[in-house]
């Protein structure tokens, strides 16, 4: 089932990008899918495991800057740079995660909230990282003489990576480890009593979310052709959180939709992009008040209500049929 869903995500993404051709819309969707790789990881980390870590934009920065530096300073190809960056993200998240996941609950939140406060000025003042303007000239994932072909093929690569990320996230959530993570999210002491290794699981979740964020950052930088320090600032994390929490923090598919839709809205029209923050705020409040699990929760609730109504109608039909047949037992059967 995870593989099937992941495959479906990849195919739908690829078809949409192919249909969009080399248009501006196609480019926007490709960037949105890059963000979606990060938001898929956030579903596992923040939504499913309730790990209070706000470091995803920082790891996106690691991915984006890593790809940019390896390509422009060390001459690696786009694919090599992305792969090397994933390795960098893995090692980095293991090192940082090994330290930060020692801090429990709100302490972890505070520690990760501090990261942008010193990494953003570091990137801004560091000439190695390109100072205020960042790093330009990052190559796309699939180079081609034709801009449109390059855009479509690079986009399809991103869709395939997103499909793999989706499958991995669903696999984690539906495994025994996922069950332990859910138990930990409800009550850590109880989960420990049931045999879950809290530190190990915390670290695994942190690494999973961070590596996907690194991949997302690398893909977005490749799509945009540049990286700036803004990716490390607080607003970048805020955008990611809105993508996940409005769409549905516990649904992988919703998080993908949230990333693509918000990325699209950011560039769709001057009016929307100017007032996007206000719309996001209203959407966030309404969604959280009506259903803390976001739009996906609302859809799920609507679906359950509809199924319940259909089931009742079916039962009523069965009762009517059994009454007609004169069977008193059938009338009290559930």
């Amino acid at each position, binding site marked *: 089932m995870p593989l099937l869903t992941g495959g479906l995500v990849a195919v739908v993404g690829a078809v949409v990008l192919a249909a969009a051709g080399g248009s501006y819309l196609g480019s926007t969707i490709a960037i949105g899918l890059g963000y979606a790789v990060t938001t898929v990881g956030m579903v596992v980390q923040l939504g499913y495991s309730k790990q209070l870590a706000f470091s995803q934009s920082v790891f996106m920065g690691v991915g984006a800057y890593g790809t940019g530096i390896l390509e422009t300073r060390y001459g690696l190809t786009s694919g090599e740079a992305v792969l090397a960056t994933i390795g960098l993200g893995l090692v980095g998240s293991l090192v940082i995660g090994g330290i930060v996941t020692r*801090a429990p609950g709100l302490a972890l939140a505070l*520690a990760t909230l501090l990261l942008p406060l010193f990494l953003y000025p570091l990137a801004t003042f560091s000439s190695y990282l390109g100072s205020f303007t960042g790093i330009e000239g990052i190559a796309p994932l699939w180079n081609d003489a034709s801009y449109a072909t390059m855009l479509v093929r690079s986009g399809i690569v991103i869709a395939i990576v997103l499909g793999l990320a989706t499958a991995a996230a669903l696999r984690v959530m539906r495994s025994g480890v996922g069950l332990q993570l859910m138990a930990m999210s409800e009550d850590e002491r109880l989960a420990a009593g049931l045999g879950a290794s809290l530190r190990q699981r915390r670290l695994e979740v942190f690494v999973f979310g961070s590596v996907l964020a690194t991949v997302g950052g690398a893909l977005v930088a490749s799509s945009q052709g540049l990286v700036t320090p803004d990716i490390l600032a607080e607003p970048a994390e805020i955008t990611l959180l809105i993508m996940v929490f409005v769409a549905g923090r516990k649904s992988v598919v919703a998080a993908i939709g949230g990333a693509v839709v918000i990325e699209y809205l950011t560039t769709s029209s001057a009016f929307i992009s100017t007032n996007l923050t*206000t719309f996001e705020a209203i959407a966030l409040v309404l969604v959280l008040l009506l259903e803390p699990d976001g739009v996906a929760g609302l859809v799920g609730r609507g679906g359950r209500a509809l199924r319940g109504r259909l089931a009742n109608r079916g039962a009523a039909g069965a009762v009517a049929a059994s009454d007609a047949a004169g069977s008193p037992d059938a009338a009290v059967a559930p």
Partner: protein
Amino acid sequence: MSNFLNLLAAGVTAGAIYGVFAACIAIWFRVSNVLNLAIGDFAMLGVLGVAELSQVDHWNLAVSILVDLVGVGLLAWLFDWLVLHFALDRGQADHGIVTVFFYTFALSLGIEGVTLAVLGTDVRSAPAFWNGPALEVADFHVQRAGLLVIGLAIVVGILLWTYLRTTVSGRAASACGESVIGSRIVGIDAARYRRWLFVATAVLAALFGIVESPMNGFTYSSGPTISLLGVVAAGFAAFRRPGRAVVIGLALGIAEALIGGYVSTSYNDVILYAALFALIVFQPRVLGLSTVPT
């Protein structure tokens, strides 16, 4: 020596700002177990509102400030009534992360978005209460607005301490965040405390922003950074000790100024916040978070 004293004065001024915002966050968290991530936006609204009324519409300064503060208080009251009351007082489920962070985060976004649409992106300040050049004693310089900031921080600190330490109402406010059921059993209206302290801290943040704005200009996006610095200082005070939050805020401001003066002007934030990060992850006990529900 004079260089050190000047840096110290600058640090105390910046620290007083951090401290007051941190205290506002801590006292409200103490009552509601919710982080007020919109506290910086209330300050920004205070400054831009007074700047607009007094400098563009040419209202009298005192009237501008009064109208502005009433407006900020009303906004906070409405948000509590329309959103927090609905989310926290009627909901049966404890939504954890959503409750702690996201309602006030949404408010912050909303204020920022509307301010951008209405007032644009200009950097503005409220008129100074105490005009004139920096005060000088030998080589020691201190800005007049800085002195007002420090004075106001001291008054706020004393008032908060008196309220929490010496009144039954202050004890009741603390009890609200400890046990909702326990407070209902003894007749404490936790929702009422949450609402009025939310309004009071919003107005206080706005007033503080107005007083300090001649030193630091404000724009529509100034709020989140102020809130984040406040959260960091409040975090080192277990999120619920306003007195300690003021002290931590002061310490942060002084450390920032001294690092800027003696180590690196560009990298002072990098060094300070990296050090705080290391402190949290290697010694999380310094936060004293054991009693904070997570």
